[in-house]
């Protein structure tokens, strides 16, 4: 019997460890999905489509949910975005499709992300193969990195008849969808199921194979007709303060909660996190859910400059995360076992000058103070893959501030065989899964046009001449 007692869904301290790491949003029931789908106006030339970086035909896929053609709905999504299941979960929908939904002004926006998840999950659980690749066209493409950019590019190319091989330095494919997005947002299984779907299109994936270690760029250029680089970014940079060897890399911290048994993870009582981007928020909320008593985000600027989305900030607050703004750690104090004991921090003041539109901050003289802390996690951005970038530079490819420069319509670099996409080219704009997928698609289309369409044209010229 349905009992009308409020669930304790929101009180994380009353949940078991496993339950705390289940997806925050439960799947929509059939009835919820149908009711929500019927609310969609099926707008013509809909603004939601324009706000989706991968141009998913949102009104059409929602209408198909309303007519119980869920298989067709999933196909509509996947035609534009092979990683629709991941994007449905991780996209900042308020900023994208749902932010543009016309129902937002009169009522509430349609829950596009949750509906997309409903259709994609149906497709995945029924193991539906929507696409039949074109016959082999004789061209070989190498993809380096199997994050959203690499996978999307690989999948689109395979659909077009290319022989595609992906090289991935980790033991699992999926990039940050597998290792980086917190479990309660996207479970590892969702990402791995998408990898399987890409493989089902004929894509070969070789894991534990790192560019620069197991093979070189020159080998790829020699053996393949085109190369796509979707290598993302690297680890979190060092803090460069005394005793920073004990600091934990935020990305590694998140990865552990995705692929290791939660019960084996060691966790501090008083955790500090440096940084206020998406990764910092994720580290903080995970630390809280793992059972840390006190979790505090240290940020050297103020609320207004935080790079995370506002809804992420709200989520962190609702999870009980504390924020210390205008605060910067300057050194780490260890106990006699070499364990971290506290931080020396300094207060900061905002200046009038800005960099990239964000005001800079400077230490306030004589404002040092001590902050007890037994675990320090950093989430202050990601390093660049400098070896690879240097190598690319030698091939005549432009690198700016550690990002690979490409033509924005084709994602081709200055080297005609080499294309790139995803976080490794995102000098400007938000780095996101959906943007990486679109990059992969753009490159795949350009590779097709430069190799296959060009060949067809050549043959035509020959025949005519």
């Amino acid at each position: 019997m349905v009992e009308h007692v409020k669930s304790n869904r929101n009180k994380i301290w009353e949940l078991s460890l496993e339950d705390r790491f289940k997806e925050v949003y439960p799947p929509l029931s059939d009835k919820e999905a149908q009711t929500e789908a019927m609310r969609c106006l099926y707008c013509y030339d809909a603004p939601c489509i324009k706000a989706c970086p991968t141009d998913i035909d949102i009104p059409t896929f929602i209408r198909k949910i309303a007519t119980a053609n869920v298989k067709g709905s999933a196909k509509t999504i996947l035609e534009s975005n092979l990683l629709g299941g991941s994007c449905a979960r991780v996209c900042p929908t308020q900023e994208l499709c749902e932010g543009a939904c016309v129902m937002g002004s009169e009522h509430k926006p349609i829950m596009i992300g949750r509906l997309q998840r409903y259709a994609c999950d149906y497709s995945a659980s029924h193991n539906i193969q929507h696409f039949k690749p074109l016959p082999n066209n004789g061209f070989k493409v190498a993809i380096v990195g199997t994050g959203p950019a690499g996978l999307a590019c690989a999948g689109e190319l395979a659909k077009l008849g290319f022989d595609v091989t992906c090289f991935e330095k980790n033991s699992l494919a999926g990039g940050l969808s597998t290792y980086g997005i917190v479990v309660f947002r996207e479970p590892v299984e969702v990402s791995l199921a998408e990898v399987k779907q890409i493989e089902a299109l004929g894509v070969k994936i070789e894991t534990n194979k790192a560019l620069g270690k197991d093979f070189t760029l020159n080998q790829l250029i020699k053996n393949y007709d085109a190369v796509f680089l979707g290598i993302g970014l690297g680890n979190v940079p060092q803090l460069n303060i005394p005793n920073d060897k004990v600091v934990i890399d935020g990305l590694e911290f998140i990865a552990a909660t995705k692929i290791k048994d939660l019960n084996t993870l060691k966790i501090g009582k008083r955790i500090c996190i440096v940084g206020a981007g998406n990764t910092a928020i994720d580290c903080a909320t995970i630390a809280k859910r793992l059972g840390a008593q006190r979790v505090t985000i240290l940020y050297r600027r103020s609320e207004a400059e935080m790079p995370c989305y506002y809804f992420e900030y709200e989520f962190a607050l609702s999870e009980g995360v504390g924020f210390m703004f205008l605060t910067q750690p300057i050194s780490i104090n260890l106990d006699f076992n070499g364990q971290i004991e506290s931080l020396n921090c300094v207060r900061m003041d905002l200046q009038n000058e800005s960099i990239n539109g964000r005001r800079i901050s400077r230490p306030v003289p004589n404002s040092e103070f001590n902050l007890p802390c037994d675990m320090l996690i950093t989430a202050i951005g990601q390093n660049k893959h400098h070896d690879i970038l240097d190598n690319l530079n030698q091939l005549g490819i432009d690198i700016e501030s550690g990002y690979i420069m490409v033509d924005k319509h084709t994602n081709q670099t200055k080297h005609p065989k080499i294309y790139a996409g995803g976080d490794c080219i995102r000098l400007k704009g938000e780095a996101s899964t959906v943007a990486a997928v679109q990059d992969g698609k753009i490159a795949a289309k350009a590779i097709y046009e430069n190799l296959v369409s060009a060949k067809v044209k050549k043959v035509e010229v020959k025949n005519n001449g």
Partner: protein
Amino acid sequence: MVDLSIDFCGIKSPNPFWLASAPPANSAYQVQKAFEQGWGGAVWKTIGAPVLNVSNRYGTIDYKGAKIIGLNNVELISDRPINTNLKEISEVKRNFPNHAVIVSVMVESKKEAWQEIIKRTQETNCDGFELNFGCPHGMSERGMGSAMGQDPQYTQMVTQWVMEVATKPVIVKLTPNITDIVVPARAAVAGGTNALSLINTINSIMGVDLNTFELRPNVGGKGGHGGYAGMAVKPIALHMLSSVANDSIIQQAKVPISGIGGIETWQDVAEFMLLGATSVQVCTAVMHWGFRIVEDMIDGLSNWMESKNFNTVYDFIGKSLPRISSFGDFDLGFKSAAKINQDKCIQCNLCFIACNDAAHQCIDLQSMQMDEGFQKMFPVVRENDCVGCALCASVCPVNDCISMVEVESHRPHITWNELIKSKPEVLEWDKMEEYRQKSNIHIH
């Protein structure tokens, strides 16, 4: 991949989805745009007698936030010059030789007039004709449209006139504004028609404005009856379709039927086809959403066919027709009773009040003590008393919460027709009571 193509009495179409003769099929621009988006055919907006239109033309019914569940119109047949229509029809046929282009025609009740328009239209290379015997307003007052469709003699006569000169297949479009649609259907067959289509719009008045007392639609302060269409008419259309499709005389004539009335989704299409339609026509849904709805119709119908292992539409056209029976042939021994899935029940108690006030008082409310200290009532069916009317299951807001399950009735499995044949005496109340006692039928 499933095969959606049809051969409709010689009219070939890549799929069964046609635009109905109505505003969406008014011009070459529209019909070609529709074909590009996936429609397999179009019945051109009716051409024929000269007319003048008015505004406003449409009135609609919304229901609880859903717009246009029904639409009525006081529009006439095409008001574009006939030569423009004919020129555009040939142009469409030239550009889309593999799509079905059928021309709807209607002129006054004169042999020469009908034969002339058929001969002129034939020159466009169109694939066939649809005779509009259905328009219920404006034209009927001039002796055309439903005025012809409501008189079987007229229907047969005009069909004969047309058949004498037509070199392409002819479809007769029937009006629903008649007591028994089988009668004009048989008349059209007697006149030699190659196919039938139904339904046209239903006579209706949409409503009254409570502030101005004007009718909807309001034509300069006046209003009148108009043709009703849209999803609200679907059950009526399905009934008329199935009674025509099941009629033995129509079946002998082997004329295909084009189903029309309230079609909006692939599910509607499947239902029309299961009840005997070979093609379907759509007007109101396109007026609401545009031609693009056909994409899901094609995709959804194909996916459904695949899931049912149907390779072509002919694998299921008319499949549910044999199930259409009549009251006299229903099994009186079949019994079902309501079963509530208490795991799903949300205790809104709508089933209780429906059964208690409007059915047979077979649901009781029982109380349960909640942890918070208050009591809640929940419904329990007395299965033995339940007559199986299915009202509770119809009002229940939760999917699959109340199901009607078959139960052993301990009654003889006999139909009404068999019963009165073997025991004619039950037509008297005292004998009926005796029969009920003996047969375990207890009605309180």
